[in-house]
């Protein structure tokens, strides 16, 4: 046992020294390329979102590099795993700093993003989150969002249902352990009071019990709901649709941008999603050339249909490109210099991306773009109206 301890201590010391050497080797390199870092969960429960962002970023960066980079400067790219854990997310941020990152895309999930913003604020590092949708993500001046903030989506959904008279009795099923879902639900609930419909049943589920929805559906059915609002992600929604079909409950299902991956779930029976309405800025079946190009390249490279996370990440990279070009920043400006220039430029640029045309940003970091209402007909997304 004693020798073991010694061996262990020895390994420890060598690991420490090695990592330190790695650390100082990197910080001393002169910045001649853009080093864009990404943070998100690549392993663990939430890995589906992190993987999508990673792939979307990679695709955009490869495209830009092939076209000659940003104003002739190539981009280097590094994506780090955070397992959807705040501590790991900060660790990933520090590791990226050692690598020499000068712009951050991330973190993917809201909680991690909030934890990382505290660190980027200290370093004055420019941060653009593709999918951290909580309002707390953008309290600092150096952080911008590509996705909608949750309150906007909640209010938008309630107004859409009210204005179009989709239903008079509405049920809500949301994920109480998810920031995205609760954020939308709260605003939806508040806005519903001003609208012409009534919320007859509200039920939540948690990350630990997200396979059985029979209870929530039964409650909605008993309350006579004509429409079920699902501010949740596609995986859980696919289960809800299957279980609703099994119990002969067929209201209108209405979702937000989290739902858009539903037709892309491998092996999913699209007939179950017939008639589902969703408010989303991105659908993989859109006819425009940009989306089609993106989707075909994505399928070719990663073997699956991209979801809204991948699209947001793709747009994030192009937004960074636009902001750099507008501000005239160069890698030599240093982290803080780049951030100051780009923060100034963000409010002036307008980006045509996959998730919206003419996206503009407010100084608060919030994006202005229009969600589209889509309905699923014959297994395809169709524009509503």
């Amino acid at each position: 046992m004693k020798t073991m301890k010694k061996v262990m201590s020895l390994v420890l010391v060598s690991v420490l020294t090695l990592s330190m050497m790695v650390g100082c080797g990197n910080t001393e390199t002169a910045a001649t390329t853009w080093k864009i870092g990404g943070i998100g969960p690549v392993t663990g429960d939430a890995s589906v979102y992190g993987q999508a962002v990673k792939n979307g970023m990679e695709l955009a960066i490869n495209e830009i590099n092939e076209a000659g980079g940003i104003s002739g400067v190539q981009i280097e790219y590094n994506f780090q795993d955070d397992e959807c854990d705040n501590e790991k997310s900060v660790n990933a941020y520090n590791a990226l700093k050692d690598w020499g990152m000068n712009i951050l895309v991330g973190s993917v999930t809201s909680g991690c993003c909030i934890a990382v913003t505290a660190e980027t604020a200290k370093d004055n590092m420019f941060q653009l989150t593709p999918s951290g949708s909580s309002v707390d993500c953008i309290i600092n001046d150096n952080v911008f969002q590509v996705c909608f903030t949750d309150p906007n989506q909640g209010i938008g959904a309630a107004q859409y249902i009210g204005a179009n008279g989709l239903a008079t009795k509405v049920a809500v099923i949301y994920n109480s352990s998810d920031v995205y879902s609760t954020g939308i639900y709260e605003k939806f609930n508040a806005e519903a009071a001003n609208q012409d419909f009534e919320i007859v049943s509200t039920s939540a589920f948690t990350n630990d019990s997200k396979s059985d929805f029979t209870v929530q559906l039964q409650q909605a059915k008993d309350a006579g709901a004509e429409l079920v609002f699902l501010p949740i992600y596609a995986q859980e929604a696919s289960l809800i649709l299957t279980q609703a079909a099994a119990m002969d409950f067929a209201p209108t299902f209405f979702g937000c941008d989290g739902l858009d991956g539903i037709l892309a779930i491998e092996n999913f029976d699209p007939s179950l999603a017939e008639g589902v309405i969703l408010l989303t800025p991105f659908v993989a079946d859109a006819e425009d050339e940009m989306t089609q190009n993106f989707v075909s390249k994505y399928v070719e490279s990663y073997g699956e249909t991209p979801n809204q996370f991948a699209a947001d990440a793709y747009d994030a990279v192009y937004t960074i490109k636009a902001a750099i070009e507008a501000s005239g920043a160069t890698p030599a400006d240093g982290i803080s210099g780049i951030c100051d220039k780009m923060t100034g430029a963000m409010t002036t640029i307008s980006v045509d991306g996959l998730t919206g045309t003419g996206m503009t940003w407010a100084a608060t970091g919030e994006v202005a773009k229009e969600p589209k209402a889509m309905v699923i007909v014959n297994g395809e997304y169709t524009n509503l109206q």
Partner: protein
Amino acid sequence: MSLISYVINGISLGSVYAIIALGYSMVYGIAKMLNFAHGDVIMVGGFVVYTMASGLGINPILSILCSMAFCTVLGMTIERIAYRPLRNAASSLAVLITAIGVSYFLQNIALIIYGSSPKAFTSVVTIPSLKLADGALTISGETIVTIVACIIIMVVLMLFINKTKAGQAMLAVSEDKGAAALMGINVNGTIALTFAIGSALAAIAGVLLCSAYPSLSPYTGAMPGIKAFVAAVFGGIGSIPGALIGGILLGLIEILSKAYISSQLSDAIVFAVLIVVLLVKPTGILGKQIQEKV
């Protein structure tokens, strides 16, 4: 009417827990170890059927049999490589930690092979759902198959243990390893057999779980695994009818507390009931009381 449908759903969920709990319970009873990797074997079983039935278009029944065979081999391999060398270790905690390592290993291997995006699992059940009381009450085919499968497995397993030589050997090993070895029982072989049966059951549980809740990802098995473990303790770990009772009770409590108390706190309520049960009856509902001798 909704109460009846809650109860049916609870029994259906509970039956899945019960089959998983059986694997936990048998392994614990015989090898005296908490096999935390059991939940992940379920996930592997699900993926094998998914690959064969949905990917290659092989007959579902054949896929299930292949999945059972695969999981059996997997279970025995895990036992041989990771657990057996630690059977006589100074602390029983060592093998618990290795089991956790195996659990991480299986999850991450699946993540690398299949990626992180969840797959929709095509139900292997072709029985149509049963409509009662003019459509107010619907029992899905999956529910019926799950409950029937659970009962059949339970009966077969009881017969196997009580009527066959190998089953008797299992009982003997669980009672006293040393004495069993002296009576000429191959202890290592018996324990390997237990892992084989437990893993084959895990494959069935995986198929049933994914048919009832058709979403499959590398982390599908983790939470049902923990809950089934709780179910096994509930009923008295090591006891086969105990696993059945524990599983079904757990399913019922979970669904009913979701329906009538709070859908967010249902897990907390399940765990609270477990604590109360253990405080009143420290070895579970059907567990054996063992008096410690001086």
